């Protein structure tokens, strides 16, 4: 018997649901079809819950992966809110148990109505569109495979308000074919149906990316959003370069004794930085000052990132000629220099950077 998506989703609820997860969980269960995933801590803070927030991946062979992005897609939330009476004050465990109850109910109903074939509809399958018997007037219910979302809409018993999903239902009659319902006024040949399915997949993924990238909500249109995403990825890569430069500069100044710190516990210290500042093994460090030599090094790194064709030696030569002081206004190197030479579209990301602290 296939392990159903529902069973797998049960398994992925980690038992270490701590108190900080409750807000995320509430938003996931308590709200309507549109799940509010715009909480920054959902994808920044608690590390166990990165896995919850992201959209489903392909639905294909990655499904069995334990630590991959996501098994509980946002759009499945309506499927589990059979009755909208779920209050927002549930504890995480209570919510998880209630969810299991509902899944059992769903499974029972599915079994009673459509038999065991329906279970196989939940598993991953290659998408095939049956085009021959499609007509706009026929009420063919099918399931669009390829997404690992579970739209459990039992035709009779479970009533749901998600009007968004009305165009596709999921009572599978033949397990090998994917039935797609054609909407009114649209072509019904297999090519356009497949294309439409693909386009909707892409737009769904774009929506999830929109949640990931801050400041993407204001921009509409796919091209604009893609530009935002590109800018964001570029800014993140530059941040990594900048930080590695910073660590390199600091490394050369400072005695770095990691042997004193237990490596396994260091991540926990890193996570709680204010507490970690009082480590006994830490040497007594004075406030770090950038001397002019190191400023030059930083400048050559900056020049390199801004003008990639420059080689290292050229960069250093140009840096020695003119040191842009405004880039290093403060004596201690912080992220301020990064923000001063940012271009305008990335002003958003500066605000976002501040949110890191």
């Amino acid at each position: 018997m296939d392990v159903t998506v529902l069973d797998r989703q049960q398994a992925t609820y980690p038992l270490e649901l701590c108190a900080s997860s409750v807000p995320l969980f509430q938003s996931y269960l308590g709200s309507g079809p549109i799940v509010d995933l715009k909480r920054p801590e959902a994808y920044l803070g608690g590390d166990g819950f990165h896995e919850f927030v992201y959209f489903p991946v392909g639905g294909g062979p990655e499904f069995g992966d334990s630590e991959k992005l996501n098994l509980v897609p946002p759009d499945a939330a309506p499927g589990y809110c059979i009755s909208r009476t779920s209050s927002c004050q549930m504890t995480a465990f209570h919510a998880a148990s209630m969810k299991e109850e509902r899944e059992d109910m769903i499974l029972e109903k599915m079994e009673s109505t459509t038999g065991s074939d329906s279970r196989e509809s939940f598993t991953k399958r290659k998408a095939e569109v049956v085009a021959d018997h499609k007509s706009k007037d026929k009420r063919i219910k099918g399931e669009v495979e390829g997404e690992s979302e579970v739209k459990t809409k039992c035709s009779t018993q479970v009533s749901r308000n998600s009007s968004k999903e009305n165009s596709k239902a999921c009572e599978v009659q033949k397990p090998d074919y994917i039935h797609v319902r054609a909407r009114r006024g649209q072509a019904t040949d297999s090519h356009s149906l497949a294309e439409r399915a693909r386009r909707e997949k892409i737009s769904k993924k774009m929506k999830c990316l929109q949640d990931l990238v801050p400041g993407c909500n204001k921009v509409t249109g796919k091209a604009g959003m893609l530009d935002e995403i590109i800018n964001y990825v570029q800014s993140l890569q530059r941040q990594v370069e900048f930080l590695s430069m910073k660590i390199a500069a600091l490394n050369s100044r400072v005695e770095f004794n990691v042997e004193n710190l237990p490596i396994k516990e260091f991540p926990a210290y890193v996570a709680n930085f204010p507490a970690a500042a009082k480590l006994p093994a830490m040497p007594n460090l004075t406030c770090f000052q950038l001397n002019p030599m190191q400023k030059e090094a930083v400048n050559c790194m900056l020049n390199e990132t801004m003008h990639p064709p420059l080689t290292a030696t050229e960069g250093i030569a140009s840096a020695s000629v003119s040191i842009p002081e405004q880039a290093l206004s403060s004596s201690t190197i912080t992220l301020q220099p990064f923000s001063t030479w940012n271009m305008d579209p990335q002003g958003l990301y500066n605000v976002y950077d501040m949110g890191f602290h």
Partner: protein
Amino acid sequence: MNNPHHLNPTSLKSRFTTRFLRALTKIRAQKPISSSSPTEIFRRYRRIKAAADKSMAYSVRSRRIWSRAMLWKLRSRSYRRQDPCSGRRSGKTNQAIMKKSSNENTTTRREDGVGFVEEADELRQLVPGGETMNLCNLLDETAHYIKCLTTQVQVMKKIADFYSF
């Protein structure tokens, strides 16, 4: 440890952190604080950046197209540094693999009504291994890549702050 925010030891963040710290200690051990000349710092910056990318790619293993591509790139770079001939050899076999996978994907890479090819190409250049992906996979990989980059930035920020005090 009175730690209310226990780190999940198998999470991406902790895996990356341990690997990166080990790499940092190695870099530290290789070259003692000889000089703070800009070239030295620059070289060290290069090494640290490569270590950061490597740690991130190893934390993700081969589960993702971008991590596989990044690992291959790093390995081929190190092979090339050790021995120029072997670099060419590995480059050839890997190019063959990449071409093959890109041939498989070219049929799905046509535009067919989705009108943002330029941005998609730009994104492909940003995400490692993006040239061989169709748009669907590209978006998936981008999301995961963004998540990993943010983790990387967070951890490195904390490490850098840790040293600057």
